[in-house]
């Protein structure tokens, strides 16, 4: 029983890292959103499994939020925004796919080395979970750094946040997990509404953050 619990949790958390890698090499916005929906789906499964394994029913709420809000509503909303703004072209990347993947592997190796060494005495399930979670967080950061487009930066932030939810559910018995996932959902909703309401495309003619940077610093 214990080994099965561990193996499934391991498998799901590992898949989350894998999907994070898949996001890194997407070069079209629609494809990126689909991969993000998959990311959120894997997260929902992983959280649900933790809820079952830890016998913590409140975590099912977090899993449901991940499934309904992150895997369905947000991708659809972003999809509509992309259509509305007409920006479904290729994503401008700062570095090439190969470099991004190599950097990603380096970050995952770093996360493993750091977390596994530091948490030598924690229980194995939480330990692996934290290591994977840190990998997902770092890959999300990498994605935010290597993309110039506002929508894909938001996707990067959301996958970073998925890593945090994974970490919070992995820490057994942690209070406020549901509250924190709700707080994050509000934050994300704000960001998405922000893109839409501020009409970054209308105002700046592009969602490419590079164009926003033109007025950076001294503008007067």
């Amino acid at each position, binding site marked *: 029983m214990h080994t099965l619990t561990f193996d499934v949790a391991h498998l799901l958390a590992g898949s989350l890292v894998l999907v994070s890698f898949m996001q890194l090499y997407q070069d079209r916005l629609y494809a990126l959103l689909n991969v993000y929906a998959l990311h959120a789906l894997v997260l929902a499964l992983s959280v649900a499994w933790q809820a079952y394994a830890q016998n913590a029913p409140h975590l099912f709420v977090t899993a449901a939020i991940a499934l309904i809000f992150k895997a369905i509503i947000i991708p659809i909303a972003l999809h509509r925004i992309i259509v509305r703004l007409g920006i479904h072209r290729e994503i401008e990347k700062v570095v090439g796919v190969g470099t991004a993947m190599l950097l990603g592997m380096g970050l995952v190796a770093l996360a493993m080395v750091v977390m596994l060494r530091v948490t030598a005495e924690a229980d194995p399930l939480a330990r692996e979970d934290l290591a994977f979670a840190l990998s997902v967080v770092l890959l999300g950061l990498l994605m935010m750094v290597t993309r110039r487009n506002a929508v894909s930066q938001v996707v990067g932030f959301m996958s970073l946040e998925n890593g945090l939810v994974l970490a919070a559910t992995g820490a057994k018995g*942690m209070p*406020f997990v549901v509250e924190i996932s709700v707080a994050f959902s509000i934050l994300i909703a704000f960001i998405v509404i922000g893109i839409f309401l501020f009409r970054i495309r209308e105002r700046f003619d592009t969602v490419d953050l590079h164009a926003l940077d033109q007025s950076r610093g001294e503008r007067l």
Partner: protein
Amino acid sequence: MSFDPVVLVLLIPALAGLILATLPGYRLTAGINVLVALATFLVALSLFFGRPQRSAYFHVDDLNNVFIVLTTFVGFTTSVFSASYIGHELETGRLTPTFLRFYHAMYQLLMFAMNLALIANNIGLMWVAIELATLTTVLMVGIYRTPEALEAAWKYFILGSVGIALALFGTILVYMAARPVIGEGPEAMVWTSLIARAAEFDPALLNLAFVFLLLGYGTKVGLAPLHAWLPDAHAEGPTPISAVLSGLLLNVALYALLRFKMLLAVNPASLAPGPLMVTLGLISLVFAAFMLYRRRDIKRMFAYSSIEHMGIITFAFGMGGPLANFAGLLHMTMHSLTKSAIFFAVGHIAQVKGTQRIADMGGLTVTNPVLGWGLVLGVVAIAGLPPLGIFTSEFLVVTSTFARSPWLAMVLVFGLIVGLAALFLRLNGIAFGEPRGPSARTQASYLPMFAHLALVFIAGIYLPPALVGWFQNVAKLLG
């Protein structure tokens, strides 16, 4: 229960925020805003006399009592300034009445979030409160809806979100470290339980947690490599918000960092958090001091000055020890008062001149003597000249450092002098010489500005023994 000041300090701004969102009319809402802020301040003052029992969610000790009183006081004076500032913005049409309603509601919500972050006894609750404070300020920075304001809000949003995300990871790691010792459940996130048992925590986990917390909350403090959002957010938002950001929100983030530093200080096997904070503090100070030279926007210039001073404060707390901590606390208090006073002056100056461009300002002491001399006094204070309060605190930081590591003190003094020269170079053009640019009339309220400056002036000459005793107590608490 109904007279519990802890509950009131949260309940008053929260309820007021809800009510203000529904009320129309500028005069009415601005008036209510001032009254509510005053009420919150008075309740906070009462914390000095009677402290409620700590609970699993809230606690008040010597450390956060200082922060709460400072926060509510500056919150109150800023609301007075805000009333006249916003009135002018309405006349010139930069703000519409709908946005104004929103603005006042957000102002109170921000006060609520900051008080909650300060008073929280639970590291998870503290994190949620800081997230809420970030969200409200993002909305207010973008309130003018110009492309620049939206860009500033967006940048702040993204960088602030990444910062609080990293801080959450650090918070989770602290819980992981506490769990084997304290046991599962909410108790392992209660700060007072954490500090009692922190000596038994796994030092490696605690170290890693602190690195994440330093990067995360450090972003919100505006420490140098992580500061990119700060100048934009200060320059593009309404000036009362710049005053609250610089004077208060940066302090709140620093407060969160200090709480975690105390945890590490208790644990003998963990790494010393001091050197990390000292390094980040010095980088911020020197970097910001040089950046001051090339500023052409007046609010942006003082935003860089805030980075400089947060660097000094972080440096002082990083050095640790009773004297440096005392100096850090004093400097933080003086900086909050002085910087918000400067922003009060700058807000009216920008309205008088119709621009924030330094090149279009000149001879303010001639055209608008009160504002001009107010600004001069503020800059003299912020640059750390005697006999004002910031001189005292900077002097203490420098002397306590010289005694322990002269080389660090050399860097510190170098940064201070570079910053001082830059500020006076710019001030000379703004305040003296030939009058330049338009000068419209404005209905300014000078009271908040001069009240702050008077406090700073008095503190530079005479510090009441009660205050000194109190700060010494807190400095010992900080280790």
